[in-house]
């Protein structure tokens, strides 16, 4: 063999292919690496640097910006909101995903169902926020959610024909025009009393012409007295020709139809009921001895359900007896809940798909073994299925924590003017602070670094878990 010469030749050229192989490998990595270096890594490092400088990045401040973060109310509010999101959302989305995943195992149209539930993920957050802002509109005439609540509410608390808008500061007392006063139970009782054959007229004001048009009210006409009966008229005692005259029935003043009336004795006990005609007249026949008052029953003025202001500025838990800051930090804005509901709508499908996959890969024989061991269906679920699914559930849960820590779009798109101050999250604060008063923002960078540090452990946890799925 001519070993040595061949050897030498190959050895000298021997390392080239090795290097070339790696060169190709590096070349493969290069585009991604360069891209990430300039657009992701550099800004991240720059953010850490900026967080230690003043707003215009000219003076080193050390940790001052971090101190500012923890002593600024708006940023603390953002922290609070992140906490609310993290505490509520991952739990619910995982639970809902689990329920859906388990239930879909048992139906034939599971594919269609899953597609339907997953669908919202592909919607832009802008569109989703828009849809849900409309769904949650506080007028039951527009918002489907409040309309649904209204339908239920009307069974128990139907609105009267002459609803009083309590939220506008209107009270039953405002309605009183003449010869009557409002009682504590929201009813209106005549000032004068009458015996059989007598008459009681009551004038009301503040009654919307629209309502009267709707009820086809006619001009008020004073009825004739009748023996053995108490009669009278209830009318809208307002005329543009003489706005201050509440006692006389002026031309074109309308009677108030379908008012429910009650005849009450001086002890306040109702002895008879009736309703008014389209011209506002009423009649109580066969009235006994003694004098009686006429009562306009409170239910006439009930406004019923007027809608929940989901996206308004109200909070779920107004804690009284605490300092203002503490109160602000402990309350849960209703708008947060509205956004969480929207987010559940978006992400439930994601949780369902992941958990469903976990469910499909479960060893069925273990479940069957449990059944053979005598476990009931619920026990199988509770003691075997769920524990076996634990790794998947954990991945969903932690993924959602990461997701929710970075929550941004939904808040930007959904918060209304009145809830805009109550609902920002850290990511929103980074955005808000970053572009105010010039674009260098130390505080904004400090928030970003903190957010980064908050997400990181969740991410590490997930990567460890995900290998087990």
């Amino acid at each position, binding site marked *: 063999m001519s070993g040595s010469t061949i050897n030498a030749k190959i050895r000298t050229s021997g390392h080239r292919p090795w290097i070339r192989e790696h060169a190709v490998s590096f070349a493969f990595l290069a585009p991604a690496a360069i891209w990430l270096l300039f657009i992701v890594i550099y800004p991240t490092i720059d953010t850490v640097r900026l967080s230690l400088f003043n707003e215009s990045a000219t003076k080193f401040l050390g940790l001052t910006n971090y101190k500012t973060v923890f002593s600024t109310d*708006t940023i603390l509010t953002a922290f609070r909101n992140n906490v609310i999101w993290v505490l509520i959302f991952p739990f619910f989305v995982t639970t809902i995903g689990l329920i859906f995943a388990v239930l879909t195992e048992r139906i034939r149209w599971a594919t269609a169902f899953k597609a339907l539930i997953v669908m919202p993920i592909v919607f832009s957050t802008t569109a989703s926020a828009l849809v849900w802002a409309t769904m949650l509109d506080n007028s039951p005439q527009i918002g489907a959610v409040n309309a649904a609540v209204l339908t239920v509410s009307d069974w128990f608390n139907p609105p009267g024909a002459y609803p009083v808008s309590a*939220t506008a*500061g209107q009270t039953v007392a405002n309605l009183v025009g003449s010869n009557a006063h409002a009682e504590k139970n929201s009813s209106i009782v005549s000032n004068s009393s009458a015996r059989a054959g007598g008459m009681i007229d009551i004038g009301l*004001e503040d009654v919307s012409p629209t309502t009267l048009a709707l009820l086809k009210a006619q001009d008020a006409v004073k009825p004739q007295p009748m023996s053995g009966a108490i009669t009278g008229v209830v009318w809208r005692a307002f005329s543009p020709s003489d706005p201050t005259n509440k006692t006389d029935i002026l031309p074109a003043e309308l009677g108030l139809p379908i008012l429910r009336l009650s005849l009450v004795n001086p002890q306040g006990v109702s002895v008879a009921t009736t309703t008014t005609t389209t011209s506002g007249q009423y009649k109580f026949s066969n009235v006994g001895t003694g004098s009686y008052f006429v009562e306009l029953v409170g239910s006439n003025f009930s406004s019923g359900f007027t809608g929940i202001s989901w*996206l308004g500025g109200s909070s779920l838990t107004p804690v009284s007896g605490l300092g203002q800051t503490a109160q602000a930090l402990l309350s849960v804005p209703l708008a947060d809940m509205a956004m969480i509901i929207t987010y559940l709508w978006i992400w439930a499908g994601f949780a369902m798909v992941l958990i469903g996959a976990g469910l499909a890969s479960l060893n069925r024989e273990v479940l069957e073994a449990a059944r053979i061991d005598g476990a009931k269906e619920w026990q199988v679920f509770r003691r075997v299925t769920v524990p076996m699914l634990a790794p998947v559930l954990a991945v969903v849960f932690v993924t959602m924590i990461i997701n929710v820590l970075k929550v941004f779009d939904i808040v930007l798109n959904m918060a*209304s003017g009145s809830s*805009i101050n109550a609902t920002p999250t850290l990511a929103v604060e980074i955005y808000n*602070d970053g572009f105010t*008063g010039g674009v260098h923002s130390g505080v904004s960078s400090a928030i970003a670094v903190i957010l980064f540090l908050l997400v990181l452990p969740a991410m590490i946890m997930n990567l460890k878990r995900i290998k087990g799925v």
Partner: protein
Amino acid sequence: MLASFSVVGVNSAASASSSTKIGGSVSVWNEFSGAEATGFATALKPFEKETGVKVTVRNIGSSGPTLIEAAVAGGKPPNIAAVPTPGSFDLLAAGKRLTPLKPILGSEVKNFSAGWSAAASYKGTLYGLWLDSSSKNTVFYNPAVFKAAGITSTPTTFEQMLSDASTIAQAGYTPISYCSGTAGAGWSATDLFQNLFVKANGAAAYNNLVSGKLSWTSSDVTQAFADYSSLLGTNGANVGGISNALGTDQLWPTCVNNVFPTAGAPTAAMVIEASFVEQTTPANYVGSDASSCTLTQTNPCYDYFPFPASSGSKYVKDDQSSGDVAMLLKSTKASRALIKYMGSKQFATLWEEAPGGTITPNLSVPASALKNPVTASIVKNLNSATATVFSMDDEYGGTLEPQMWSNMLAWVGGTDTTAQFESTMQSETKAYLAANG
């Protein structure tokens, strides 16, 4: 056009004599939409034709200041931007992003009153040009509803306004349809407070409050809120209730349509908002009483009265206004020419003439440009103001603006007492002023 020809400076090739074609293009960012945008484009046409400059207008919506900041940082600001927020104007001027306009505008400077010029200056240098203005000193009302309540003349004092409101309520109408603005953005609630404060205490006190020289906890502020309460406390002040003011459904133009409905009968009598209500109203108001009112450009079925001051107030003619201030971010021959044109009589006249009800603080506009008597009256009122202030939320750029809205709505909704509002505002203003100097 010819008038400006005589004062051509080195920089003001703007005069654009018909023989000079400048060419090139100018980018303009603003927040005009709908009819305003159309009118703006119409008003720019002669300039484009004369100079051969192509003007690209872009509506940057309400995130305008953010986008301008980003564009400046990105090295590609627009040539000209117009914002409704004097606050962000000040920040940009302070950051030396703007070009001084006095040498560029030349004689056009004289088209603006000293007040409006001052409002377009930063530390004494003129950096801006008010393109349009709105009077916030306006209360629009439905004459048919006033008639139905037996009210024959509009109120001239705040007290009279309260008593009229009470009468209207008795008649079964909501006296005041309270706008919570787009998505409840609190600016309307803020405007109302500002009207009350400036009418009672005058523009100087108002500006002191803005600049932190007057404390939010002062009795003047407290009194303004007391007045505010008495107005809202008038039963049924607000269509759908106060909680709706804080929600999302009292959207613009719903609050206007309560007074000037597109269908059916009106449910409310007055809407207290700026003159841009007009831009919403004529377009869709069918008139509440078709027999007596035929809606035309010259005969609107709506009317307004100036927001009244309490009887005895010295500041009846101190008004609140708003508008869009144009500024030169990137100076080129074409953009200088354009901003000079924007200060001209021709531009302002064309813009006011265009449908949409835009009015400008440009004094050179002839009265004949306004065919609508309501608009004409508003302009007259605007120009006769002894002092003009801007909305505080506009003066405060950035974070204080939404903070103030939110605080205001918390007060309106009854979550915060007046004292709580005052102390919150005081500390937030202090922090804001400390940060933005």
